[in-house]
C-alpha cells in the first residue's frame, strides 16, 4: 500500500522565482492538505483540497496556490519566492475532509531559496 508520495525531495530556487511541488495521496484518500515546516518548528497548515476545490486555507498569502486533479493528486505552487519560504513542505492526505479523520504525511520536499 503506497503511502503519500511527494516530488521533488530537494530543490534550490532563486529569490523571485516560482516553484511547483507535487503530491500523490495515500491509496483510498481523496483529501489533500499542504503544510509548511520551518526548521525547529511544528508544521503550519497552508490549505486543503477536496473534490478539486480549495476547502480551507491557513494564514498564507496569495503567492501560495494549489490544485487538485481528478485522480486526487495535488500541486502546490509558490510565486515570487522569498528567502523566508525556505522550509520543508509536507503533503498530507486523509479519507475525506471530515474533522477527526487520521491524516498521513509524505516525506516532504525541502525547498531552499537563495
Amino acid at each position: 500500500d503506497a503511502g503519500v508520495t511527494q516530488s521533488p525531495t530537494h530543490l534550490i530556487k532563486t529569490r523571485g522565482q516560482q516553484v511547483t511541488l507535487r503530491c500523490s495521496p495515500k491509496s483510498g484518500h481523496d483529501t489533500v492538505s499542504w503544510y509548511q515546516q520551518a526548521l525547529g518548528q511544528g508544521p503550519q497548515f497552508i490549505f486543503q483540497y477536496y473534490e478539486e476545490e480549495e476547502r480551507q486555507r491557513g494564514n498564507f498569502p496569495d503567492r501560495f496556490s494549489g490544485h487538485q486533479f481528478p485522480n486526487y493528486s495535488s500541486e502546490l505552487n509558490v510565486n515570487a519566492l522569498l528567502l523566508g519560504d525556505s522550509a520543508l513542505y509536507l503533503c498530507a492526505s486523509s479519507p475525506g475532509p471530515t474533522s477527526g479523520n487520521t491524516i498521513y504525511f509524505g516525506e516532504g520536499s525541502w525547498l531552499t531559496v537563495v
Partner: protein
Amino acid sequence: EDQVTQSPEALRLQEGESSSLNCSYTVSGLRGLFWYRQDPGKGPEFLFTLYSAGEEKEKERLKATLTKKESFLHITAPKPEDSATYLCAVTSDAGNMLTFGGGTRLMVKP
C-alpha cells in the same frame, strides 16, 4: 483560535529511563488529538489518534492518554531508536486541518 503547547522542548533520557511528554491544548470543539513521530529530515509518522477524555492507546513502548485539557505520551523503558521529535496536533470544529505544537525533541542515550 486553536492552540497547542508541548513540553518540555527537549528531553534527554538514559536507555530504560521512563518518562512522559506533555501536550496541552485549547480548542473550540475537539475532534481529534494526534501524536506523530518525526525523524530528522523526514515527514511526520502517525502514531495515535485520541478522540475523547479518558481514552488511552498503546503501541510498543508508547502509551498516549487524553484529558479535557491535555494529553500525555508515556515512554516506558525507552531505547536509543526512540530518539526523535514527537509532535502533538489537534483538529477541531474549525475543520480537518491540524494545529501543531512545537514538538518535543527526545534523545535516548545507550
